[in-house]
């Protein structure tokens, strides 16, 4: 149930367009002063949820609370939240200052007061020298920062960001990640960030809600979502992983012994709902694997190196387990002193850090 200290409480929110259900019964709470991310592929309902919080889409069923106050029936101009739009949506006929001052004026600030505050906001995003220009005279990255300044100027209780970085090039995108994160810390405003880019989500967020097909798949801190994905979708969508089909042979003390095929065996953490004999998927991140000549104490899987792929910071080694599936092992380039790179065709053992392998429900 809604709490006053939560920035946003979404309670059993459903969104339907005719027969199509865009969101099915989502409930989540977003804390005050949090950088919260809605992550998922396009069409998963993340933008719909954001637009429902902003007031651009009505809620078919359920309720939305802002600091304990029910808001789902308020029009967008009565909700103390502001949005940074994907295409920025800057007013083309107004100058940068007029754009940033717009929300302040609408909230009843005098023209001069609004302009002074707009000037401060432009200083914050380092665009003071462009104050008198029109949006079309600015680059994409600059427009992005104007949109940010405009949305932050009226000091909203929550800032909504709809894929704000997707139109920028890679370098700028990476720089903006840190700027956004810093801005969130400085202002203390709750940010709700929508993205389909898992790297963006992992680097910026305090907590992430992973969504797919109108449902929430997992909610948790970035690290938790990466290291302990609940299901196949989350494991596959976030980062790179080895997804292998396994059958569970026996379960003892919360540890499951799994059969990989080709006589390979592994021990995984037990997961609720997975019993002996069930066929499930297992996920293990490539960077938590390493290769060796001889079997180590932990469980080692024998295989043949097929290829090495250089990917900048790492080397990806593809290993065919004998009579079994294929696995990818990542070796950091900085580790090369300690870890040997095996040539294609060489025999090697794939070893695993403890607790690296996780069973997943489908």
């Amino acid at each position, binding site marked *: 149930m809604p709490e006053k200290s939560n920035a946003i409480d979404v309670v059993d929110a459903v969104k339907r367009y005719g027969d199509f259900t865009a969101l099915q019964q989502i409930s989540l709470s977003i804390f005050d002063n949090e950088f919260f991310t809605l992550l998922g592929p396009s069409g998963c309902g993340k933008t719909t949820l954001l637009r429902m919080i902003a007031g651009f889409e009505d809620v078919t069923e359920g309720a939305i609370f802002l600091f304990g106050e029910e808001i789902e029936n308020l029009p967008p*101009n*009565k909700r103390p939240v502001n949005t940074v739009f994907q295409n920025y*949506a800057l*007013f*083309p006929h*107004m*100058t940068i200052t007029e754009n940033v001052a717009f*929300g302040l004026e*609408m909230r009843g600030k005098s023209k001069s007061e609004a302009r002074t505050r707009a000037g401060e906001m432009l200083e914050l995003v380092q665009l003071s020298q462009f104050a008198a220009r029109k949006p079309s005279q600015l680059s994409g990255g600059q427009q992005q920062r104007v949109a940010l300044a405009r949305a932050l100027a*009226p000091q909203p209780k929550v800032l909504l960001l709809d894929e704000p970085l997707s139109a920028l090039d890679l370098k700028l995108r990476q720089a903006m990640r840190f700027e956004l994160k810093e801005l969130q810390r400085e202002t203390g405003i709750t940010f709700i960030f929508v993205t389909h880019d898992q790297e963006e989500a992992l680097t910026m967020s305090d907590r992430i809600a992973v969504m797919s097909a109108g449902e929430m798949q997992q909610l948790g801190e970035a690290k938790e979502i990466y290291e302990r994905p609940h299901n196949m979708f989350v494991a596959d969508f976030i980062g790179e992983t080895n997804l292998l089909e396994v059958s569970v042979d026996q379960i003892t003390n919360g540890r499951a012994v799994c059969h990989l095929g080709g006589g390979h065996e592994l021990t995984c953490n037990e997961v609720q709902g997975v019993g002996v004999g069930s066929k499930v998927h297992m996920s293990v991140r490539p960077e938590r694997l390493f290769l060796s000549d001889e079997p180590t104490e932990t469980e080692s899987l024998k295989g043949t190196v097929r290829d090495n792929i250089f990917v900048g910071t790492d080397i990806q080694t593809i290993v065919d387990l004998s009579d079994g599936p294929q696995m990818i092992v990542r070796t950091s380039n900085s580790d090369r002193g300690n870890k040997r790179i095996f040539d294609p065709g060489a025999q090697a053992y794939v070893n695993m850090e403890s607790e690296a392998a996780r069973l997943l429900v489908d």
Partner: protein
Amino acid sequence: MAAGAASGGSAQSDTYAEARTWLLLPAWAVLGIFILAPVLMMLVYSFLTKEFRGGVIWEFSFAAYDQFFCNRGLFGDEPCAIEWTFINIFWRSIWQAGAATLLSLVIGFPTAYFIATRPEKVRPIWVFLITIPYWVNLLIRTVSMKFMLRDQGPLNDFLISTGLIDSPIHIVNTNFAVQLGLFYSYLPFMVLPIYASVERYNFSLSEAAADLYASKWVTLRRVLLPAVKPGVIAGCILVFVPSLGSFLAPDLLGGAKNFMIGSLIEEQFKGNAGNWPFGAAASMILLTMVLIILLIFARQQAKAEKGAG
């Protein structure tokens, strides 16, 4: 292609330039024959002497302009005093055309907005519906309008039958009837350009305005209208200019009292009673006036743009 042109040097670009000249020739010819030549003919005619049975005598004269602006008494031998008759007709025409334009804007803008916000598939149907009445001849439409509006017409019958009024409202032969007629004649010219610019309008701007606490009214005034202004201006010009020179609606709906420039000019060329140079002069004055109005408009537009930028 671009690379080829660069390496090919100027010989090739000369060929292109030459081809362009030839290809543009038909367009220039059409413009010359159908626009420039008639206007020049009018200009020349306005400075000729009138022939009593219509037509002109090829003799240079200011008589037509003199007749328009000067009152020289019953026998035409007094010094020039300002002749108000024709200036008043012009003034009334501007007023009528302006009112009709405003009416078209007030009705046309919401209509255009409505069409542009329908699903993409059904928009052409709405545009089609708007244009259907215009497949019927303007004369027929204006006459039917008169029939609709007259004292014993369907409109008054309906209003009396609902009990809203006791006796018919006299609409025909008033200024309002002319404005209605002009509005009805040129409404699509208002709707279509506005529709075109609203369709291109980025609706997330309206969302952004609402997000920044603007009411619907403020959003319309400060975000939507400035963005679609070119369409609105185009629509206003397209309705105002033909309204100004129109003669069907004022003749049929306005009666003799509500004479407009169009009728004045038309009369000069009708039958044998006309005065061609005078009609030509009135046309030239009308043309000059329209150009001046458009120029002032363009000038202000540019100033506003500069001031904002």
